[in-house]
């Protein structure tokens, strides 16, 4: 079974708080997700990544710091490339649904799936943007100064 099918198994429907008549992702999207939501999701799955001084960053996290030229030195004193990328590319999975939190977003299994999905699409996006580089991803609790489930990546 290919990777995405493994992540998007239809068993996930059993975790959904409300039952849908059809166990089909496409049906669900057609009936419950409007076009602006869908396009926004596409933006999340294929976000902007930026290369700066041989480091690759998730642009949303470093936009202001780049403008103010404050990426380096890292405020936590990290000098290692991996540590710097790992810190700046931190993405808090649990807090992502802050304003839209519901029963599903409080389910750790769902959040973990969400993380795996992001890894799948981000890896492809990174490969497209930086074909000569390879990346490692990590999903872990309480990374750096955050409390909860987080995702991060760095160059291998």
């Amino acid at each position: 079974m290919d990777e995405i099918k493994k992540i998007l198994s239809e068993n996930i429907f059993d975790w959904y708080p409300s039952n849908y008549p059809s166990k089909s992702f496409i049906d669900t999207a057609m009936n419950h997700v409007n076009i602006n939501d869908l396009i926004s999701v596409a933006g999340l799955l294929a976000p902007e990544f930026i290369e700066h001084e041989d480091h690759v960053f998730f642009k949303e996290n470093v936009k202001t710091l780049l403008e103010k030229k404050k990426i380096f030195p890292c405020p936590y004193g990290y000098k290692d490339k991996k540590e710097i990328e790992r810190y700046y590319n931190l993405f808090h999975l649990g807090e992502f649904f802050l304003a839209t939190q519901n029963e599903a977003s409080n389910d750790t299994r769902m959040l973990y799936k969400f993380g795996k999905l992001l890894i799948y699409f981000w890896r492809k996006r990174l490969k497209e943007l930086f074909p000569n580089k390879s990346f490692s991803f990590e999903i872990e609790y309480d990374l750096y100064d955050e409390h909860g489930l987080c995702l991060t990546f760095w160059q291998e």
Partner: protein
Amino acid sequence: MGKPAQQQENISLARFKRALFFAPIIFWSCINLAGWDHEFRVSSSKNSVDPVSSLRSFMQEGHSTSGGTGHIQRDKHQSPRPKPDRKAYKTALDLLTAYRIDTIFCLSLLNVSCDNMPAYLQTKSYDKLLAIRQSLEKFFKKYEADKHFRKQASKIKQVGIYKTIKIGKKKIWKSRKQIPALKHYANHAYQAVCTTIENIAQSTKILCRDFLKTSMGETAQYFLRRFMMGVSQSGIDIQATLNREKRNGPCDFARDLMQKAKTQPIRETLGDVMQLLSRATINATAVFVAVSAIAVTIETGVAAATGALGAIAAQKFFEPLALSINLDGSVAVESAASSGVSFWQAIATSIAPAVQAFTGVVEHTGNLFCLMENRGVGYGDTNVFIDDLGNTLDLRDFERLKKIDTPVKVNRSGSNVPIEGKPNSIVTTTGGHKLIYNSEGKVLYDISEKRIKVYIWNKSTSGEWFVNRGSKTKIFRNQVPKKLLEMLEF
């Protein structure tokens, strides 16, 4: 008669005992003065060895032989002076570099004598200075912890340090102990960095204290706090704003201000100034002039600029006064007879070429105040903090918040942080963070010991609230003020 005779006897006995006590010391001293020891002797003009000369001696000789003050005399029986040990020099440099001490700094460490170090470091940016200090702190930690590193470092030539030993009340003996040269030099550099930081902080503290004495009292303090906030906020915008608007912003600002000052009380004028300061254009002008004065003081260490700052801030807004300011070579002078507007026009003309130079200085000034705050040597009892990105925090905003004792349970994945709560309250999460709710009951800050996360709320046209994300939302990264942490009971 018998009693005085007994006293005389007692005195003699006491003298004898004292002589007995000092005899070996005198004997030992004589031996040393005769040059019978095989150590270097230090001239009696100084009691302790100057580490600066020790380093200089190393630099001149290319290796470490001993400490000294420049009056070192070599014993006749001593073997000839060894040749410079380039290998040790290179090894020291490699080791320092390998252990992440800045390369430029390594070179300066090994090539600039310690007495020049503070002056040398003062020419560098403040960020650089702090980075160096951090590197050195790491170096010492590494040095203490890493056995392999210590072994490698100890292979480098040893350097002699004299130690003064007290016998009785006099310092009469000096012994020498050997320590690895690498640690010795790094220690000197560390001391130099700390001294430099301390000097700058102290001079600015004095500057600010003098400013507060310019008979403006409470109003001046208030203005100063807001001014400090503006320093950092405006620093980055100065160049951009002036370039974008391509006009003499100071003139417009000054004209408005002078008009207002003529017709309304001082306190109200100050209120207007505060409002104006919050706009980028005004930030880039009003704050700029005052910051320049501070910057000049910091850069040159000239105490005279203190008066200029006080004069600008205190008198310029309220009454005409003869004043001369020298900004980066451009001079603007106002006589008692000239009008406020013409003064500001002169300032605007004169500062135009200096804008670029001062932009960097302003940033450093912001960092400086941030540092001072964290070190607890700030200007008076201010509650305003500025981080390295120019974000400001006024602790007085936290004073009126009500602490709720019941902790908020946040699940393990951190997904159910309550975004709404009791207005103007502080709650603790089960993860140990503090959530601050604003007057509308919306979460404003998530504070941990390492950072402050800001929730920026926006309202869509359809009236829906949403929270902004991104790099703007993390402030005070690894520099959360201690005072705030204490206030929030971390």
